[in-house]
């Protein structure tokens, strides 16, 4: 394989692998920027994947066809947002430790989804969906030399949506009144309170947005990659998204960059095994390379990552 061939394999797959991570990390960003740790991203993705598949299957059964997956993704957004209320109610209203309630959410999601699959289908995993999100070559752009094959060929539309959303979230978080208020609540909730901002309401919104985005992330994963849902469909992607969020220093574009970095590292490690030059390297080195690279990158240039100041603490009016 020549270098162009390798890049043409690695870069598109990095981009498409990153999409669910980007979406989920953006979700985590809303929650954490509002001051609520969200270790439940994994569970929210599970819920999204479950919803994405079940709704697609149901709609296909009703003869909806190609639109099924898209409707399913929208439903996953809603269900994700609703399901995240579990975390929101516990950690915001009931003042539960945010990490505990996130962990509980992870348990609940896997248990509930598989339980429901058994209830709906009488088996532990769903059938395969017929309509998926498919890859396409972006018209015109894919014909540009070099850039075309790398960035605009065999791409999933969901990847572009994810990247676009990252940019939109960036603007929302840093340039709109909503973003300003969201961040103020995560930095200094009491200050926000004295400015007439309803701290708990903002946090509810933050957590529900995290549910919406992570739900979408899970659904995108399921309808693009796995095609069905089982207990093992989402295995650690939520934690990787959390890592991307921190890696990206709680910044939407940073999180996107981190997710793309993870995607690239994984794609390289898998493609690497097909590169003759590396054929004699024991495969374990390539397998662990993405994770080692991430650690090196963190230690080398990224360094200190400081989250929102008030993160992890429930807001109790009048306490100091």
């Amino acid at each position, binding site marked *: 394989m020549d270098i162009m061939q390798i890049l043409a394999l690695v870069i598109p797959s990095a981009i498409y692998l990153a999409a669910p991570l980007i979406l989920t990390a953006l979700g985590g960003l809303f929650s954490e920027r509002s001051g609520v740790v969200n270790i439940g991203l994994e569970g929210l993705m599970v819920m999204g994947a479950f919803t994405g598949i079940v709704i697609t299957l149901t709609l296909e059964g009703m003869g909806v066809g190609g639109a099924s997956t898209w409707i399913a993704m929208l439903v996953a957004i809603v269900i994700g947002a609703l399901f995240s209320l579990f975390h929101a109610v516990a950690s915001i209203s009931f003042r539960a430790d945010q990490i505990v309630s996130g962990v509980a959410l992870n348990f609940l999601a896997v248990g509930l989804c598989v339980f429901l699959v058994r209830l709906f289908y009488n088996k532990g995993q769903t059938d395969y969906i017929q309509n998926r999100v498919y*890859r396409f070559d972006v018209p015109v752009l894919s014909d540009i030399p070099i850039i075309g094959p790398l960035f605009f060929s065999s791409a999933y539309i969901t990847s572009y949506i994810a990247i676009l959303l990252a940019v939109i979230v960036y603007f929302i978080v840093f340039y709109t009144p909503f973003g300003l208020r969201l961040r103020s609540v995560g930095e200094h909730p009491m200050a926000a309170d004295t400015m007439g901002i309803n701290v708990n309401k903002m946090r509810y919104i933050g957590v529900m947005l995290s549910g919406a985005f992570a739900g979408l992330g899970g659904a995108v994963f399921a309808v693009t990659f796995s095609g069905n849902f*089982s207990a093992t469909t989402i295995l650690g992607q939520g934690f990787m998204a959390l890592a991307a969020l921190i890696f990206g220093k709680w910044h939407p574009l940073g999180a996107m960059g981190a997710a793309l970095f993870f995607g690239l590292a994984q794609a390289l490690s*898998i493609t690497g095994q097909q590169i003759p030059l590396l054929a004699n390297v024991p495969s374990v080195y390539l397998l662990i390379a993405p994770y080692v690279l991430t650690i090196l990158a963190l230690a080398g240039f990224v360094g200190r990552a400081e989250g929102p100041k008030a993160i992890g603490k429930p807001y109790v009016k009048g306490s100091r």
Partner: protein
Amino acid sequence: ASEEPETTTDEATPSEEPAGESEDFKVSMVTDVGGIDDKSFNQSAWEGLSAFGQEKGLEEGTDYRYLQSATMDDFESNLRTLVREESDLVWGIGFLMEDAVRTIAEQNEDGQLAIVDTVVLDAEGNPYENIANVTFKEHEGSFLVGVIAGLQTEGNKVGFIGGVESELIKKFENGFKAGVKAVNPDAEILTQYAESFNDATRGQQIANNMYGQGADIIYHAAGGAGNGLFTEAINRARNGEAVWAIGVDRDQHEEGLYGEESVTLTSMVKRVDTAVYLVSERTMNGDFPGGEILEYGLEEDAVGIAPTTDNVTEEALAAVEDYKAQIQAGEISVPQTDDEYEEYLSSL
């Protein structure tokens, strides 16, 4: 409720066994973490057990049943529960259960156990008298799909994706490679392991790489990670590329569907159900094959190609029949390990 099926049972029992015994006959299985609907060997085993139960008029849940394991930790507990319920035959599905089955067999000398996909030996290397060992000649079935792949590849390049490397998966790999080379000695075969039986994205990326390098047919033995192969193949087929996927364990035609067509060229089916049925029946008839190492292969129709053959050429189908006969006749010895494969290659 237990009296109800009595009459049917009597009628259905072909043997001369006293009615009392068959009425009491209880058979059960413990699944791997995949559960009875893993679209793989657990599911197949349960299908075999269900078919057996239904045909013999047994009652589901009491006379024939399964327990699912949530983690590896549960194998032993589950097996034990069933043995203690005095099940006449308890199945452990999958080679991961080897040690659990051994432990239970040692603790319950009266229990009758059977295991799929491996052979349980004691410290001296002898099989246990109370364990029936059921294995398959996956390499033979894989050989046949290899023949199809070798004949139908257009670019003379095919691929194999394994799940996690193991002795068992190696049988699939080497059988497949041997089949390809048998009909197409010039063909190049790419192989890669996903290091996971679950991660569809890894399967997809490997498939992407292989197709990207010009392979047009890929066979997988990677469980859920194999889902990614179908995802990738469908994506490419929709873009007009002539690529194929070969399924494993059962007919994976469904996984390959896009619109009216399927990217599934064929599948290597492994009839765990058949084996489970046959051994259960022997046990019910008082002929428990304890201490035996049963190897189910082409002979018993326990491995082979899937019934859906829409995408397979006439020529390839004919070749399959031809090679099947040769293997059964012992004219070809299909390699299982890497060493045997090397030997096989040099003999070509």
